[in-house]
């Protein structure tokens, strides 16, 4: 099975790879997946006035998982929390032309975005 050009591009040139300070109150961190399933995604957002000003990811997983999380960080940057919350895994599938066996990678990326937002909101609520 060959990878789509977009997946290869994100794999070769990952966008926003790295980490933000997970202890900062302005940063939300989402970690989803499990090592025994072969995919773990960490997605972090930095928020100012309800808007995501920065995002970073680190992913353990196949090329499609890496591409999905890379794309997710690219998309959420500049979005409001509500807008980011509305990103659907099917948007990711379409953009990256993921085959059916890789749909779970896009699901994980959507979950990672939501988990990061939740984490940020939980910190704010404290």
């Amino acid at each position, binding site marked *: 099975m060959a990878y789509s050009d977009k997946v290869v591009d994100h*794999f070769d040139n990952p966008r926003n790879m790295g980490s933000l300070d997970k202890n900062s109150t302005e940063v939300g961190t989402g970690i*989803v*997946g499990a090592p025994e*399933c072969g995919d773990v995604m960490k997605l972090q957002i930095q928020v100012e006035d309800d808007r995501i000003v920065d995002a970073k990811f680190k992913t353990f997983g196949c090329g499609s*998982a890496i591409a999905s999380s890379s794309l997710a960080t690219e998309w959420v940057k500049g979005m409001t929390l509500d807008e980011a919350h509305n990103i659907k895994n099917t948007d990711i599938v379409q953009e990256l032309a993921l085959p059916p066996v890789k749909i779970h990678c896009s699901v994980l990326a959507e979950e990672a975005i939501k988990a990061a937002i939740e984490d940020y909101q939980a910190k704010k609520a404290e």
Partner: protein
Amino acid sequence: MSDSATPRVFYFDNYASTRTDPRVVEAMLPYFTEAYGNSNSRSHSYGWKAEEGIDQAREQVAALIGSKPAELIFTSGGTESCNLAVFGVARMYAEKGKHIVTSAVEHRAVMDPIRQLEREGWDVTYLPVDTTGLIDLAELEAAIREDTTLVSIIFGNNEIGTQQDSKAIGAICKDKGVVFHLDACTGLDTEAINVDEHGVDLLSLSGHKIYGPKGIGALYVRRRRPRVRLQPMMLGGGQERGMRHGTLNVPGIVGLGKAAALCLEERDADRARILGLRNRMEAAFMELEEVYVNGHPTQRLPGALNVSFNYVEGESLMMGMPNVAVSSGSACTSATLEPSHVMRALGVSEDLVHTSIRFSLGRFTTDEEVDTATEQCLASAQKLRDMSPLWEMFKEGIDLSAIEWKHD
């Protein structure tokens, strides 16, 4: 098929299939275009020529495993040989007993026929393996019963390269008077196997694992002490002593014969060279921290290097070295995310299963290919560790096994 603009992809998947040796191809060609008769045709020279080709091939394969030519049955490949051995013996001796002993790390060509027999009422003992992939000989001995009609064990494991103690297994089977099938599809290109020294009653081999063509194989069936009988799976023209009917694949058989002859001649030199290259690659990988070799440290086929780069997922590791053809050690490309039954049987922890890839070296692997592939693999592993949240946690001293992972 080749395109000068695309870079060459280095082949490190010899335990999936080997390149057909050009000398084998050469030997086969006349049997397509000149000696194209049916080897069963006794009335003209086309048939006689084909039969001569078959006879020579039978001698060549017999020489490789130390059997008599007449004890060989040509088949459509390793899968058919294994199926014929398992079904053929089980059904032929069903009145004597319905118990089979096998291991947990068999190829599916053995495992799945045995599963089928289990559904049909046979009783099966699956011997577990230790973390290196070896069965316990005492457990084997204890597992054999009055009603055991077959012991089927793999010689060299195609996923991890572990070599069972096949001589000791053969001796136990002889002692107990049970038919022993050795699945020697992988490893016959570098390892010396003699059916008498190994106490083998049935032996499966496959053309495309020893630089011969695909779709051709052979099953050795012992004729004396004991005389092993098989129930055929297909019925027809009476070929191969009635155990495998159907017009013989003459060019394929000639190719298998030539491949066997080349292995006999070049096996020892190939073995030494391949082992040197494999060890060089392995040593370079081991310089990185958190790298584990799967399989037995020493009792392992020389071409096998199944390696886990902890915290790096195997499929992405392969994607990071697009000019190197290797196999995934796990089955993460399938929708089920099921690790292979072999890795599971070793007790490799579930997270490490997803980090394994298999290099398999062979006759045509060069020094330059090994060095380039090693370099690309290490570069890919390092890049992906920088990208791995698990590596980051490991470096922060977090115990990953203590984390409750969120998954559905």
